[in-house]
């Protein structure tokens, strides 16, 4: 009762849309269904204890519980195998009680003669002589239970992919709008390039849906953790006062939309999380009452990768990264691997690794020929022709402030070296 209660409570309290609530797993109904399954099995003389004994003790095909058919049309059933002549189950390991109840069941089923029974000759019957008979008992309430559950899962999965594509199209639109307001000057006099870059940088560092730490191997976050990280992100943006730096009148509302897209992802995650729990719980309950082991077999039967496990956050994060966050280049992707500053001016070696011109000059002066990244001998051969002009213009356009500072630093460093040279020369002369 406890879970049924909290489940319906969560569905009530969260602001899930009506069609979502309608698609949620009907936990109470499924629970009632389990009761019917139990009484049906009882009619066959199969109490939980007997079933437990059968499942645990039976070896091979004596007693089997299976889902026959495909996901769209299937029938759960019990399959019994026994000696055709005397109706004795073909398993010597069964305990007395279990054996007796099974024998009773067989007699009953045979007596009815309405079940389809097949005679099979044992093909490689070295161990067992004679023929065996297979009786299949279709379970009706059981079938009702699993068909209900399957249709719930199907509608949930349809809903999930629907919300996924909705969110995706939102993200794409948002990406275009943000590109427009954050386009660099001079095309865009009210460019919000810097504030948006800052927002996205904090967003990436917050690791909202995935851990951004190597040590946590970039794991997917739980819903609670993701919510916590999202709050951290909004607080951080507020604390740094980034929204006050917006110049473009559209930026504040775009930021609100950006947040609401994230909230949407979170809400979808939460909804599916609770439904997944409901499914696991109801299957557990089913197994507890029937000992048929559906926890193991059913999820695999419905979907090889397990039902309701679509990596929603993974799929959406991919879209977020490629079509939203990537519209604004981040400085970290354009750092010289030697000085960790922006690679201005960028020199591309013949091995296609890029360094800033100052670091490259230092390497050449130290007579180091091997590329710091791949050790190919191509440093000394580099000259003015290796300057990557396209990248240089790109960096100046998208990182005007950083490029300016770096340029000034470079000039200062050159001047200092120059002065040192003069100084040492004059020392020699005097």
């Amino acid at each position, binding site marked *: 009762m406890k879970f049924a209660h909290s489940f319906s409570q969560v569905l009530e309290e969260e602001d899930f849309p009506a069609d979502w609530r309608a698609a949620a797993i009907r936990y109470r109904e499924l629970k009632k269904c389990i009761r019917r399954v139990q009484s049906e099995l009882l009619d066959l003389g199969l109490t939980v204890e007997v079933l437990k004994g059968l499942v645990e003790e039976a070896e091979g095909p004596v007693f089997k519980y299976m889902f026959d058919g495909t996901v769209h049309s299937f029938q759960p059933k019990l399959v019994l195998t026994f000696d055709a002549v005397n109706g004795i189950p073909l398993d010597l390991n069964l305990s007395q009680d279990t054996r007796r109840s099974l024998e009773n069941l067989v007699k009953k089923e045979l007596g009815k003669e309405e079940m389809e029974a097949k005679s099979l000759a044992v093909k490689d019957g070295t161990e067992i002589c004679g023929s065996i008979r297979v009786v299949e008992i279709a379970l009706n309430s059981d079938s009702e239970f699993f068909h209900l559950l399957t249709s719930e899962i199907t509608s949930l999965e349809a809903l999930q992919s629907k919300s996924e594509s909705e969110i995706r199209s939102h993200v794409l639109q948002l990406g275009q709008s943000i590109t427009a307001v954050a386009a660099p000057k001079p095309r865009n006099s009210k460019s919000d390039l810097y504030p948006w870059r800052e927002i996205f940088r904090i967003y990436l560092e917050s690791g909202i849906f995935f851990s951004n*730490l190597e040590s946590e191997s970039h794991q997917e976050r739980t819903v609670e953790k993701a919510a916590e990280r999202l709050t951290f992100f909004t607080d951080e943006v507020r604390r740094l006062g980034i929204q006050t730096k917006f110049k473009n009148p559209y930026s504040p509302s775009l930021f609100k939309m950006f947040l609401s897209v994230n909230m949407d992802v979170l809400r979808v995650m939460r909804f599916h999380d609770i439904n997944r729990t409901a499914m696991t719980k109801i299957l557990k309950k089913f197994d507890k009452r029937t000992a048929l082991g559906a926890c193991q077999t059913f999820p695999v039967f419905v979907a090889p990768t397990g039902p309701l496990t679509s990596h929603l956050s993974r799929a959406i994060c991919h879209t977020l990264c490629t079509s939203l966050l990537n519209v604004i280049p981040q400085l970290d992707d354009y750092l010289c*691997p030697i*000085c*960790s500053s922006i690679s201005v001016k960028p020199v591309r070696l013949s091995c296609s690794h890029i360094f800033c011109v100052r670091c490259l000059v230092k*390497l050449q002066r*130290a007579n180091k020929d091997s590329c710091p990244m791949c050790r190919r001998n191509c440093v000394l051969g580099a000259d003015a022709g290796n300057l990557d002009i396209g990248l240089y213009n790109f960096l100046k356009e998208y990182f005007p402030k950083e490029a300016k500072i770096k340029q000034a630093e470079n000039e200062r460093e050159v001047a200092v070296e120059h002065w040192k040279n003069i100084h040492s020369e004059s020392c020699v002369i005097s």
Partner: protein
Amino acid sequence: MALPKRIIKETERLVAEPVPGINAVPHEDNLRYFDVTIHGPTQSPYEGGIFRLELFLPEDYPMTPPKIRFLTKIYHPNIDKLGRICLDVLKGNWSPALQIRTILLSIQALLGAPNPDDPLANDVAQRWKEDEKAAIETARAWTVTHAKV
């Protein structure tokens, strides 16, 4: 002189995202000088030991490699009595694209894979080649004596 951006960035990342089994903390009064500890790799004779090292970033780092030395006594064919380490990437094979974290990882790996064919401590290397089992036993004993807290 102001600390180069490269060193600031590396230090920040070392603190924010430490490498498992490796700890490097800069001195407050000299940000180029680090106190380092490395945990002995599992399934090596150094397992369970915590080894202290000192690391110094010279003026022209990263054009020249960091200077690193073991402070804890260790029985290893590529580490001598003074704690000096024989490792190619700390010498001729240094590349300015390598970092403190990568170099400390290399040292940790060296503990897991001693190389007696390129020795620094000749006596240890000799012993390692002649009677590897006994040498490993000694390394284990030294770990217990010197590297356990």
